[in-house]
């Protein structure tokens, strides 16, 4: 019997959920690391060097960052191709769904559509971001990143990406829990209510954190615009050549 079973639908559903979960955990971690700029330029430089392996190898290896980017890109590609199965595939399907969503005024139905839109937007937004980090892994640091954000005008991309990624991630985690978690039928409604509240709180938190750090990068970039390209050298290491 089991020889005839096609297990791919099960695997694909699991893999879609699993890649989504990993990507959400990644982006939430990413937010904390990139917002180290809120603690100062030295803190951000320390985090940058940590990801370049400088604390282990004595010397930064930006290629490590490129490697991480490649891994994330693979996860995104797998997640995207699996999620595409669920996108409306024709005008008729879009039309039915739109009419249904408008008439139902049902939060979870609408939230799914928000995921479709933000997911589609991230095909472009996330790819642009990943490509730049992949080909210029050495171009990360208090001044290097700020110059990219302000002088390089990447802040426009980052504003759109910030909103898309956190809506998509927050809603995705809520739906992931509803999809797989073994809630007891009697307490499921309460659990769902709490999860949804948690979802909005998490989205609001990361949007605030992301906005605060983005504004900080923009401010540093604005003030540093006339010296764009110059790297940050911490006061304690001004004699060392290693800096970003």
């Amino acid at each position, binding site marked *: 019997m089991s020889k005839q079973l096609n297990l791919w639908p099960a695997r694909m559903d699991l893999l879609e959920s699993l890649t989504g979960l990993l990507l959400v955990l990644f982006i939430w971690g990413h937010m904390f690391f990139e917002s180290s700029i809120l603690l100062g330029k030295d803190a951000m430089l320390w985090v940058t060097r940590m990801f370049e392996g400088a604390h282990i190898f004595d010397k930064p290896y930006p290629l490590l960052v490129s490697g991480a980017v490649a891994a994330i890109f693979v996860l995104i590609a797998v997640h995207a191709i699996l999620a595409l199965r669920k996108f409306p595939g024709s005008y008729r399907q879009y039309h039915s769904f739109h009419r249904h969503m408008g008439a139902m005024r049902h939060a979870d*139905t609408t939230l799914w559509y928000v995921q479709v839109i933000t997911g589609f937007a991230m095909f472009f937004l996330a790819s642009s971001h990943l490509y730049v980090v992949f080909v210029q892994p050495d171009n990360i640091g208090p001044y290097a990143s700020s110059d990219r954000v302000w002088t390089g005008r990447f802040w426009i991309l980052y504003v759109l990406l910030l909103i898309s990624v956190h809506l998509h991630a927050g809603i995705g985690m809520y739906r992931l829990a509803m999809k797989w*978690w073994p*809630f007891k039928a009697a307490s499921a409604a309460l659990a769902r209510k709490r999860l949804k509240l948690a979802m909005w709180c998490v989205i609001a938190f990361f949007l605030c954190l992301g906005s605060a750090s983005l504004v900080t990068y923009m401010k540093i970039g604005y003030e540093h615009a006339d010296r764009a390209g110059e790297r940050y050298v911490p006061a304690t290491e001004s004699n060392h050549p290693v800096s970003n």
Partner: protein
Amino acid sequence: MSAIPVQQVGRTLYIHILRHNPCDPLSEAHLQTFELEEADAMTLFIALNEIRENHDPSLQFDFVCRAGICGSCGMIINGRPGLACRTLTKDLPDNITLAPLPAFELIGDLSVNTGKWMRGMSEQLETWVHSQGLENADIDSLEQTMEPELAEQLYELERCIECGCCIAACGTALMREDFIGAVGLNQITRFQLDPRDQRSDAQFYQLVGDDSGVFGCMTLLGCEDMCPKQLPLATQIAFLRRRMAMV
């Protein structure tokens, strides 16, 4: 002297009904408005009967039990699926728009053939107890006992009245006609839990282990929120998804 209670004059309801008779080649789908005075504790069942009696005897709609048990009066009420007999007009605004449930064959006006759809689903999913050697069973002997908790769990899922509201509330079912929806997945869970059904998980997987079954569900939760019987559909589908993913 005590005051004589005065009957308050009810609101005037404007009931807009999507009319269409697919058997009549000249019929075109259109909204027809009926004015009606609201009565105390009026349900849409009462309102529709009043329209048929006093305004238009040709209006088609289905009712049997008028108590939320038969599942025939499912319709779209102001955009959302629900049972007309369980919907009080006092919970609705002055303007009420009624339309037939989508995804089912239209018989006429508000009447749809949910029975045909449900039968197709039932045959596709084989929603009956599969057991070997029943022809030799001794019907005089005592039945095998079942734990009360399990019996209650089965009864809870058996409460489904196949009204079709979960299908009409499901964005996935409206986009993909072959999706069996919460009603079908609920049936499979019911037989999966039943110890009298000897089918293995692998056999259930063959019935629902693809995008027209449990892996097609996108967790929009319209079924859970619109089910007139408040069945725990979200937890049932999550249970089935976990079982089928582990086959």
